[in-house]
């Protein structure tokens, strides 16, 4: 446990150091997270059942969202917004980016379920699941909160944060978007970061 904590702290420092030294994205910054590092190493299970890491999954600018497929209202709203932002980025700015949908409900969201879910929204949105421990570790890296409303049956709901994070390969966290951000706003801000890469 101590070793894991040290490894995580080291990784977070590595992620945040370049951004602190010289902010190449100063003109883009909409959110201020200060010293708080968001994102970091994770180990999850991809749509084919293979174990993957953040380095495998974030090879281009990527929108990262944590949600659950049983959620019919908020999560699809965010996922549809992210998918439209991806299209707008491609059409208006010529940038191809990727998206990850990471479940915070691995008990119900199996490999097949998250894959089918992500496929509805965008061909380049990948659904990731994992063990309870893997999901908890990934959520902690992104400072994602989630708590199941255990009601005793399979129809339980999960409270959770609904931010979308823009992650850049080799750099890490760039920006986060609330549900209220429009597809155009996500696309425009993301384009700014990608243009300054």
């Amino acid at each position, binding site marked *: 446990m101590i070793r894991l904590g040290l490894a995580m702290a080291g990784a977070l420092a590595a992620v945040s150091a370049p951004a602190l030294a010289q902010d190449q994205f100063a003109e883009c910054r909409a959110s201020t997270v200060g010293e708080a590092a968001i994102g970091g190493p994770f180990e999850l299970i991809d749509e084919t059942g293979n174990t993957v890491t953040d380095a495998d999954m974030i090879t281009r600018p990527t929108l990262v969202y944590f949600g659950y497929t049983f959620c019919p*209202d908020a999560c699809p709203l965010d996922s549809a917004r992210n998918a439209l932002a991806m299209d707008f980025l491609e059409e208006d700015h010529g940038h191809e980016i990727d998206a990850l949908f990471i479940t915070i409900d691995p008990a119900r969201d199996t490999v097949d379920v998250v894959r089918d879910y992500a496929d509805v929204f965008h061909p380049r949105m990948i659904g990731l699941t994992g063990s309870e421990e893997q999901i908890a570790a990934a959520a902690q890296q992104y400072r994602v909160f989630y708590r199941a409303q255990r009601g005793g049956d399979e129809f339980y709901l999960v409270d959770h944060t609904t931010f979308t994070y823009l992650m850049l390969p080799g750099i890490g966290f760039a920006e986060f978007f609330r549900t209220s951000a429009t597809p155009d706003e996500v696309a425009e801000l993301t384009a700014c970061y990608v243009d300054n890469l």
Partner: protein
Amino acid sequence: MKTDLFAAAGFAALPFMAFADEFAVGDLVISDPISYETPVTAQTGVGYLSITNTGDVDETLIDVRADFPRVMLHETITDGDITRMQHVMGGLVIPAGATVSLEPGSFHIMFMGLGGDPFEVNEDIPATLVFETAGELDIVFKVEARVPATTGQTGTDMSDIDHDDMHEEDGE
């Protein structure tokens, strides 16, 4: 009773214009019951609509029934940074002269336990609204594409979406 026969006929003649689906009982008019397509393995679907109370007395939507293991009226609530859904207890009041909208990010009907039969674009999802005073009303939710854009995943032919329109789609 369904009141959109003429609108339905018009839709066939003018495919680029969208007419509202309307249903009515007593002093209530229910507009645009829609749902969204779901993944094949989905266990939940959603229902949205607007209810206008043209009468002088408040009305309450006390139940929604449909052919699923569980159907509930929910509200999405954001407290600070946490989003959660909760069951609307005691029904949804439709004040006299007012319109209450069930829309993304707010009130919605949740269909649970789809069990391998996903909602598909253009599918009809029949349901019954139960009002305290006006009684029961059978309606039909039309299933729409989740992302009406150019991803090629949605089965629609809307290839030229105006970005400005999409701002309206996003939750406030």
